[in-house]
Each structure stands twice: as C-alpha cells, then as structure tokens.
C-alpha cells in the first residue's frame, strides 16, 4: 500500500472505532491528549494496527507512541518488515 492509502485506511478506522472527527486526525494530533484515547483504547488500537499490517502487536509495544504520525510510522515499519 502507498503511504497515502495507509493513512487513509487508518484514519477511517479511527473515525469508525473511536467516534473521532476526521478533521481532528492530523499527523501531530496526540492520541491521549487530543483524541481522548485511553489505555483501554490502546488495546483496540493494537487491533487496528493488526488489521492494517497483518502483524500482531501488543499494547505494550505502543508505549512510546504518542501521535497519529507515530502510529502511521509504526504501521509502515511493520508492513515493510513483513
């Protein structure tokens, strides 16, 4: 998938799963402070990433992930590695 396709699919899943406003999903948007995700949402975020990459990730691996751009970078890394 191209970078843009990944971003688009990822954003669509965020809107659907977490009831987010598409306008709020900017690359620098912070998951916890700006998008109101919490630690339980991190479990579902890991599932979203698994759906996009086919690779299983644990919520713990997302500890250092802070922004939308961080997640997109992780997704690309997992796709490239797989």
């Amino acid at each position, binding site marked *: 998938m191209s970078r843009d396709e990944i971003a688009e699919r990822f954003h669509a899943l965020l809107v*659907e799963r977490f009831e987010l406003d598409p306008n709020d999903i900017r690359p620098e948007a912070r998951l916890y402070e700006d998008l109101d995700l919490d630690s*339980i949402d991190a479990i579902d975020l890991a599932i979203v990433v698994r759906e996009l990459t086919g690779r299983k990730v644990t919520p713990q691996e997302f500890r250092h992930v802070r922004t939308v751009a961080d997640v997109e970078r992780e997704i690309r890394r997992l796709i490239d590695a797989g």
Partner: protein
Amino acid sequence: MGTGRGNRIESLRRSVLAGGGFVIFGAVALFGLCIPLPILLLVTPRRLRERRVRGLASVGFRLLVRMIEGCGLARIEVRSEGIPDLAGCLLVANHPSYLDAVFLMAHLPRVNCVMKSSLLNHPLFFPFTRLGGYIASDNDDPQKLIEDCRAASARGEPILIFPEGTRSTRGAPLRFRRGAAQVALRAGLRVVPLVVHCDPPALTHGHPWYRMPDERVHLVIRFAAPCEIADFAGGSAGDWSRLARQATRGLENYFVRQLASTPHDPLSPP
C-alpha cells in the same frame, strides 16, 4: 430554619462532629490494623482471607455508619423494589459524597471495589485494601483490570465502581469516564445502576468536613434491576470501543435523569 446565627452554630457543631468522626475512623482503622487484623490473618486459611478481611472492614464501616446516624449527622436510606441479586454484577454508582462509599462498604460485605491506587497504597489503609483483594483502576495494564473484574465476577462477587473516578462536584455536569462501560463490555458483566442522592451536599468536592450543612444530611441510595451495558447504548451491537463510548453517554444520561427525579420514585429502566 433558624436565624442566620443559629444556622452557623449548627453548621459548626456538625463540622466538629464530622471532624471527630474522621479522627475516630482513623483510630478504629489503626486499632483494626493492630489487633483484629493480625489475629484474623493468623487463624484464616489463605483461600478465605480476602473474604474475611472484607468482612472485618465492613464491621468497621458499620460502626462508622452507626456513629454517623446516631449523632444525627446523616440519615442513610436504601430504596429499591427489594435489593436484586447482585452476585457477579458491576454496581455502577454516582459518588456525591464519602458517605455513599462508607455505607455501601458497610452493608455489602462481599463486595469488591474498583479503587484508585492511592487507596491500595495508602499508609493507613493499605493492609485492608491490599489483603481485601480490591481492584486497581489505574495501574499500567488495563487488561489486568478487565481480567480482575472477570475473575471477581466469576467468584460471585459484586464489583462496585464509580465511573466518575472521584467524588462529584456539585453544580458541575456529571462526567463519567469510560472504564466502567469498557469493563462491563469486555468482562461480560451485567450492570446494576445505583443512584445516590445526597441532600444537602456534604463531604463532597467543595463541601469538606469543616463546612458541614446546618441540617442532617439525607442520603438515599436507589438500586435498579440488573441490566446489560448494551441497554445504555440503545441496545446496539458493534465494536467495543464505539459501544463503550455510546454506553458511557447513555449511563450519564440515565443518571442525570434519575437524579432529577425525586428519591422516592422507583428507578426506571435505561
């Protein structure tokens, strides 16, 4: 109501009683730590330990409730069409005052409780909160919270949770965090709403122990019948993350509606 000066004196008198109540509670807790608890631990097999520790804590809380009612600080009442079978259910309550938690712990001795780590690590209470096997709401691992609740429910324990995460702020809109809905969904727990009325406000944010009202506090706790968390999301199905958000809003709306009705009416279903 008396004159302005009478009200202030009455308020002061009640504040002194409330302050004294805290001191006595601390003393009782300290005594409980020194004598009954160690004896209990010595004679109790491990598998009964949590249950007995909770029972002991419950005795302490019952003493406290008796003191509070006996000296006229508060009158606490439970209203429901009979208390439903609470085994394994998630008891979801609003939290206007310290008094509601005290009363519930006094009269539901088997109940588990989701509480902040500050209570599990509290310098005075930690032996009770840790040995009582209560559940931490805010550790780093949310899976553990869900698993702990699932396990407690499987053992038949009701689990008390306050979705506000703290005591209410009088005058501010009710704000529920999503943890209660998430736990109910992911651990498959039925929900029992407990609506707590506290009038006039006391021992809540903005009304500390030294600003007691000048009349007796009337606390009314209403139990609803057990229901499904999805009932608060309009019965819809779907992704848990989305459902938890809908159900949390649904719970907030439900509590706001019920709190607006008088405490004497039975609770309506969601």
